[in-house]
Structure formats: structure tokens, C-alpha cells
């Protein structure tokens, strides 16, 4: 009996001692003394394969980090697999990464449908689904989904920022909104309404929607003009954005125009619309544009180009999605640095939710990344830009989420 107790006490003491010795280093699957395994699903094939370059850029960034000695002495092993932008394939991919490859967490899976498909699984498994590459506002829901976090400014926030700007510059505005009838458009409109608050009812004189399947939005633009609106918020994807800008100009409607940051492509939207027809349109940005002459000679963009040349030479040096990949990868590296030797999934999530004034090099100066256990929206500020007929010119201060 005594011997039993003694040996039991011995075991307890031993395990306590072991616990003390290991307190510095705690690992979940995917983390060791020398490596950190990170997983991702990405549409390298399929209808959204243009975004695949984000995954390749992120892999290239981790390659650079590894060449520099890794993070706290650990190399990043990045497994990014193709989901073809198909939710069933994303589920299969996420399961492979978690169950087969045993990654520590998932970083930057792309697409609202794919991330919705895996969200329940990731949260049930308690594996972080970190910095998802989609602008939907639903990723900022730490109460229901504590293991899922977004990254980029969401559509809701962007809508709020434009509404805020309208309140400041044109408090008696009569607002007309054109939006795409899906989660993107609706998130946006709800943001505008939230920022306008009580005034939403009186200020918004017309709200018209279109379906992605519609051939044109001409009739919607005409009806917006007829409503007497003098501010036009254009929440459309590129093809419709070009149509709407051209139509408004052609029918002689001259409102103050706001255009979603989804459709700011000069080549894909502004040129087809007719560059002179888009002069004065207001939009926003949060990352440095590779083609913007204002950023070209900054150290950040010089570094970015040097990195592109060395680690991702096949990538397009003018494509801002490569800036996106570079910037979001910096954020995850920051999370891993903060996590130190406590590489448990819980701590990864805890560190991701305690970023304080983190500034990636290629983000527009003044924008800072801040998160907390109740705030899972890392980037919440943008800077407004105005189209001058050739490119987007930044103006004013960095604007943040008014809800804070």
C-alpha cells in the first residue's frame, strides 16, 4: 500500500518535472523543433484559377523566410493544394491537410463558398482557419466560429467607409445604390445602411439590384437617375461596373460616384468604360499598387520586386494579387513569431487574435492590423482614391471602421 502510494507520488513528481521541462515548448500536430507545417486549399484550376497566383506568392514568401533561417529556428513547410474552386474538393482538401498531412493550421484558403464548406469542420476539429481570402463579413464571428478569421477589409466595412465619407462631405446627399444580388452586394449595402444609421431611410432614395446573369445594367442606371439621386454607389463586379460608368455618363447623369474596390482595375473596368467617363470616381485601396508610380520607389516595393525576381520570377510583376499574397504571408509569419515555442493550435488562434498595430511592409502607410478575441477583422481601414483619367490617386487620411 505504502509502496503503491510512494510509486504513485513518484510518477506524479516525474510527470510534473517533465511538465516543467516542456513548459517552454508545446506542440500540436504539425509543429516540431525544426518545422511548422501549414496547409491551404487554393483554386489552381477551375473558374477562379486566376487567384491561384496568391498561393504561389505565399509559397514564395515562405521560401524566402526559410532561406533567412525560418521562424524561431523552424522552417515552414507549406502544403497548398488545388480545390478547383469546388466546395466538395475544398472539404476533401481540408480533411487531407488536417487528418493526413497533420498540419498545424490552415492559412488563407480562398473563396467564400469553399471556406463556408469547411468552416464547420475546422471549428469542430479546433484547427485554425486563418486569414481566409474572401471579403465576406461573416468571418468576423468569434462567438460562433472561434477558429475562423478573415484578413482583408470586408465588403461591409468598405460600404461603411463610403457612407461615412458621404456624411462628411455631402450630408444632404440623395443616394442611389446599384448592387449585385448576392452576398457581396448585400454585405455592402448593409454596411452603407449601418453607417448612415437613422438617416439611411431619408438619404437612400433608390436601391436597385441586378443578377450576375443579366446582360446589362442599363435600365437600372436609368431608373437610378430618375430617382433624383446625386450620389451613386456602384457595387458591381468588373463587367457591370464598366457598363454602369459608361451608361451614367452617356445619359448625362453626373452624380458623385463611389465604386467598390472589387472593380478598380484600370484595364478591366476603367478602359472599357472609357477613361474620360470615369474621372472623379471615388474608390479605396489598402495595399500598395505595383503600377502606382507613388509607391514605385519606396523601399517596400523595391523589396517586393527583388523578392518577386528571386523567388517568384514566373509571377506577374504588375499583378496586385501578388502584393496581396506577400502581405498576408507577412501577417501569418508575425503570428508565428508571436507564438514563439508554444505552437499549439490554441495559441496560434490566441496570437492571431492579439495582433497589435502590426504593419506589413506593403500595406498603405497609416493602416495597422489590430485584432482581439472579440475582433476577428484584421484590416479595417482603407484610403480613399480618386480616378484621374489614368490611374487612381490617393487622397485624404486613412479611414477606419466607424463602428469602433
Amino acid at each position: 500500500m505504502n509502496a503503491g502510494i510512494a510509486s504513485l507520488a513518484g510518477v506524479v513528481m516525474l510527470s510534473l518535472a517533465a511538465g516543467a521541462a516542456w513548459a517552454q515548448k508545446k506542440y500540436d500536430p504539425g509543429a516540431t523543433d525544426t518545422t511548422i507545417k501549414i496547409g491551404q486549399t487554393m483554386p489552381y484550376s477551375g473558374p477562379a484559377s486566376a487567384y491561384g497566383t496568391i498561393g504561389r506568392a505565399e509559397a514564395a514568401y515562405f521560401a524566402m523566410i526559410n532561406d533567412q533561417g525560418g521562424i524561431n529556428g523552424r522552417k515552414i513547410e507549406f502544403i497548398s493544394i488545388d480545390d478547383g474552386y469546388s466546395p466538395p474538393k475544398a472539404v476533401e482538401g481540408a480533411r487531407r491537410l488536417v487528418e493526413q498531412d497533420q498540419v498545424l493550421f490552415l492559412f488563407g484558403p480562398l473563396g467564400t463558398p469553399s471556406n463556408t464548406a469547411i468552416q464547420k469542420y475546422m471549428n469542430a476539429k479546433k484547427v485554425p482557419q486563418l486569414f481566409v481570402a474572401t471579403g465576406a463579413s461573416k468571418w468576423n464571428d468569434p462567438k460562433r466560429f472561434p477558429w475562423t478569421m478573415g484578413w482583408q477589409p470586408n465588403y461591409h466595412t468598405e460600404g461603411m467607409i463610403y457612407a461615412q465619407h458621404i456624411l462628411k462631405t455631402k450630408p444632404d446627399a440623395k443616394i442611389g445604390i446599384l448592387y449585385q444580388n448576392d452576398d457581396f452586394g448585400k454585405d455592402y449595402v448593409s454596411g452603407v445602411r449601418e453607417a448612415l444609421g437613422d438617416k439611411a431611410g431619408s438619404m437612400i432614395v433608390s436601391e436597385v439590384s441586378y443578377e450576375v446573369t443579366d446582360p446589362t445594367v442599363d435600365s437600372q442606371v436609368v431608373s437610378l437617375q430618375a430617382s433624383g439621386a446625386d450620389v451613386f454607389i456602384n457595387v458591381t463586379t468588373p463587367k457591370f461596373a464598366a457598363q454602369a460608368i459608361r451608361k451614367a455618363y452617356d445619359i448625362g447623369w453626373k452624380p458623385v460616384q463611389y465604386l467598390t474596390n472589387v472593380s478598380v482595375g484600370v484595364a478591366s473596368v476603367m478602359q472599357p468604360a472609357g477613361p474620360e467617363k470615369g474621372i472623379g470616381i471615388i474608390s479605396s485601396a489598402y495595399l500598395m499598387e505595383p503600377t502606382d508610380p507613388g509607391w514605385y520607389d519606396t523601399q517596400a516595393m523595391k523589396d517586393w520586386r527583388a523578392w518577386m525576381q528571386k523567388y517568384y520570377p514566373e509571377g506577374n510583376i504588375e499583378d496586385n494579387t501578388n502584393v496581396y499574397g506577400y502581405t498576408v504571408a507577412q501577417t501569418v509569419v508575425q503570428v508565428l513569431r508571436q507564438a514563439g515555442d508554444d505552437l499549439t493550435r490554441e495559441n496560434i488562434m490566441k496570437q492571431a487574435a492579439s495582433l497589435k498595430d502590426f504593419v506589413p511592409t506593403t500595406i498603405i502607410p497609416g493602416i495597422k492590423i489590430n485584432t482581439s478575441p472579440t475582433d476577428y477583422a484584421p484590416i479595417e481601414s482603407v484610403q480613399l482614391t480618386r480616378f484621374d483619367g489614368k490611374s487612381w490617386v490617393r487622397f485624404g487620411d486613412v479611414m477606419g471602421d466607424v463602428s469602433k
Partner: protein
Amino acid sequence: MTARALVPAVVVLACALPLVASDYRLFQLTMVLVYAIALLGLNILTGFNGQISLGHGAFYAIGAYTAAIAMEHAGLPYWATIPLAGLVCGVAGFLFGLPALRLEGLYLALATFALALAMPQLLKYKHFEEWTGGVQGLVLLKPDAPFGLPLSADQWLYFFTLAIALVLFAIAWNLLRGRIGRAIVAIRDHPIAAQAMGIDTSLFKSLTFGVSALFTGVAGALGAIAVQFVAPDSFTIFLSIIFLVGSVIGGVASIQGALWGAFFIQFVPNLADQISKAAPWAIYGLAMIAFVYLMPTGVAGGITLLRTRLATPRRDRAEAQLRRRST
């Protein structure tokens, strides 16, 4: 050793797999079974009846959404949604088959293609949104093993899918080797002669379309339960084309071909991704060309050919080949 003698061995092997395979592998194998059922439906229509469909992804989607909506809004248990999805798709397929009868060959292919193109947008349609969840789709719960069976959710779903697949394969086999099967094939080979023999070709073609859609719809429902999520983006036109690819690669006028085709569409994209991230579809295309070139009658046909080569002496081969052509 005939193919029939192999069936029990394959079934025993399939039942034993959960003992060795991880949950993740079982999930993949469940998807293989799901695709096999869908391809079986397509094979009945395209392979045996000679009607080309580029729109079976649409029936798969209808099956998946029937199951999802029945579980989400009507509170039906998952198992009850399977026959419901089959019924809905069977009726939908039969009705679609009626006017489509006037269309032959490529024209039918285009009509079904249109259906597949329209499907994701119909699912997003705002007046259906209350039911379909719009672009957001519907998230489903994964069923646990019943009666306190000591199985994980993935193991249980694998057995559940396997059982349904076995039943459906047996039904297809029985259907195709009997009178009805001969009528279906006769319509493909010589519609005028079939009609002259007293086969009601229009009725049979519509019915075949219905049965085919039923199989694919059941597969859709099982797929939705396995993936736990339906959204319009899961059922794009690519799905329909990939079904046709799987069907042809596996062996279009073959029952076991459906299984081979399912293995192809489940695993070859993963393989392609591992070989090249820059051009996974180029690798996928190469694999397709290789299969079609090496096994022009599909994997099923290739296996039959290989077996006759091994089993028969050279001089009997020409004769055997002749016999095969005549069947």
C-alpha cells in the same frame, strides 16, 4: 474466372476497408462510391441507350439540394432524403426526357448542356433563396452511426453509401440484362428496327432518362450528406463534363466502368495537383489522352481485352474479338 465470380470478393474487400483505412481515406472512398452511382446513371443513358447527356451535373445538383432542403427545412432524417431525392430526380429526368426525345444525338447533348449551365443560376434565384440559401448554400450536419454502433461518422457513412451503391448496382445489372435492357440497347443500336419489333421507343427513352436521373440524383443526395454542404458553386458545368469524362474513361457501356470512372474523377485531379501546381489541368488532360489512347473502350473494356489476351491462345483471339463486336 468470370467477372461475376469476382463480385463477392470485391464486396468483401470493400466491407473490410474501414478496418485499415483512415477516416480521411474513407471519406474519399465514399466520394468514389457516390461518383460511381452518378456515373452508373449516366452510363445507362449514354452507354446503353445512346443518348448523350452533358447535363447530369444538374440532376446531381437537384438530388443534393433535395436532400439538403429536406434535412434543413423539413427536418427529415438523412436516410429518408435518399429515396426522396431519387424520386424527385426520376420525375424530373422523365419530364425532361419527354421533350428531349425529339432531339437526337448532338442536339440532345446541347439541350442537356443548357440545363447544366442554367442550374447554378437557378439555385441562386432570389425567389428560391429562402429554400436554397442562395449563393451561401446550406450547411448540413454529419450523421452519426445509429444504434450505438462503434463506428466513426465517416465509417458509418461509408457503409451506408456502400449499401446503397450495392443495391443500385444490382438493380442496374438486373435491369440491363433482361428484356428491358435489351430494348434499351436495341434503341441505341437501331431505333427503327427496335420500333419495328414493337418497342415503344419514346416511352423507353423517357423512362431511361428518368432512371438515369434517379441514379444520379441519389448520388447527389449522398454526396451532399458526405460533404455536409451544398452551394451553387459545387454544381457548375464542369461537374457535368467531368461526369462524362469519368463515364468514357471508365467504359461508357459498362456497369463496372462506372466504378473505374469514379476512381478516375476522384483521384486523378489530386495526382495532377501533386505533379504540377502551375498547370494541373494540362496534367489532367494528358492523363485523359493516355487513358483514351491506351484503352479506347474505357478501363472496363481494357480489362476485358487484357483478360481475353491472357486466357485465349492467339488463333482464338480473332474469333473472340468478332464475338465481342457482335454483342
